[in-house]
């Protein structure tokens, strides 16, 4: 299968790989996927007191498209408010990375990951 240049770029130079302390109150963690399905994505966001995402980190077990989708997502969410970040659609990721139909599920997973991270952060704040 041929990959787009953008997928290859993100895959070879992934942005924002790493870990944030999941126990910090200003960190939201979203982990989606399953090892049995061949991809697991963990996305973490650090949110400022103004509700803007200051930092984002990811780790992904999965194919090149899954790694690229999560890498791109960390770039996109930084500087966005939680609401703006939640509005990112998988189709935008798929379009940006020129994912073929068989790889669209990777972008769906990325959308799920940011939603889960925002949810995790919000539930922490509600406590």
């Amino acid at each position, binding site marked *: 299968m041929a990959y787009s240049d953008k997928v290859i770029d993100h895959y070879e130079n992934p942005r924002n790989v790493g870990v944030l302390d999941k126990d910090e109150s200003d960190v939201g963690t979203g982990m989606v*996927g399953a090892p049995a399905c061949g991809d697991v994505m963990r996305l973490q966001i650090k949110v400022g007191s103004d509700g803007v995402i200051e930092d984002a980190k990811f780790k992904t077990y999965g194919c090149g498209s*899954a790694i690229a989708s999560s890498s791109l997502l960390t770039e996109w969410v930084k500087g966005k408010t939680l609401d703006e970040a939640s509005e990112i659609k998988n189709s935008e990721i798929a379009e940006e990375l020129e994912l073929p139909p068989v790889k669209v599920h990777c972008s769906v997973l990325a959308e799920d990951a940011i939603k889960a991270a925002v949810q995790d952060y919000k539930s922490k704040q509600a406590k």
Partner: protein
Amino acid sequence: MKTPIYFDYSATTPVDKRVAEKMCDCLTLEGNFGNPSSRSHPFGWAADEAVEQARKDVAALINANPKEIVWTSGATESDNLAIKGVAHFYHKKGKHIITSKTEHKAVLDTCRQLEREGYEVTYLDPQTNGLVDIDQLKAAIRDDTILVSIMHVNNEIGVINDITAIGEITRERGIIFHVDAAQSAGKIEIDMQKMKVDLLSLSAHKIYGPKGVGALFVRRKPRIRVEAQMHGGGHERGMRSGTLATHQIVGMGEAFRIAKEEMQQDNARIIKLRDRLFDGLKDIEEVYINGDMEHRVPHNINISFNYVEGESLMMALKDLAVSSGSACTSSSLEPSYVLRAIGRNDELAHSSIRFTLGRFTTEEEIDYAIKQIIDNITKLRELSPLWEMYKDGIDINAIQWAAH
């Protein structure tokens, strides 16, 4: 050294130059282009002679009679002809077939078709080393069993089934025994005088011959009958009609002749390279060899690198032409059914890479591959949340994952 490096000899092999030369001699006006069935002039006679020489060379590699060789378009057709041919010819004797879950799709899908036609098929579970359990096979035999079809060497994990032992059982019970030998011919000894195999599928392109040609061994003593699947001019004693492709057949014959002559020296060299690759990788943490290491062809190594997904690893190993049991590499979304059948969990099946070496693999290529693999495994594990969890002592199987 040129990249990418070819490590996928079980998918196909390059045609040996000596083979290609012989094939080229059978194409043009100056060459041996005649129709082997033309009995009325020297063009036909010469082509027929070339085809019959090839038949002898193919038969010689498996110690069979040349009259027992039927030309086909490849091992897939041979499997179809053998299985459907026997099922249709002997259906009055019974309608039960035994095969295994790790067979090639050419066997499994043919059996599925026969199920649709009203036949019953038993699919044996392999043992965790990938081999067919002989006792389980014996227990599966019924009074209406007409055919057992078991592969000699598995294409993914390279393990060698004991077809000699299976042949003793089937012959005693009067059951026809078919063997798919696409992955074993030219790699290990096959002897049709000693092994009680009734039908044996062969392919040319796995052993440095051309694609598009294969053969089916059909035993004469005791005589095995198959119903033709391709009808027409009655070629190949009525079992497979169609003008014989002289250049393809001559290529297969030459490839088999060379294999017989050079198999031992090729194997001695390849097994050293395989061990060198294995030694270079075995100390990486969390690596698993898939399939039995003892009953295995020399050129195959299939490894799972836990916590790294196979397709992303292949993407990283872009200088190495390998194949993966990961779902993403195939058009279906299931990981390797062979690795699942030998009891590997989905993660390990997704993390597997198959390296198959061959006649033209060099030590330099192996060393380059080892370095590439080690570097990229490290890189991808740094990216992997599962690896991090493993390192933190978290049991990944204890987590409730949401399947998607």
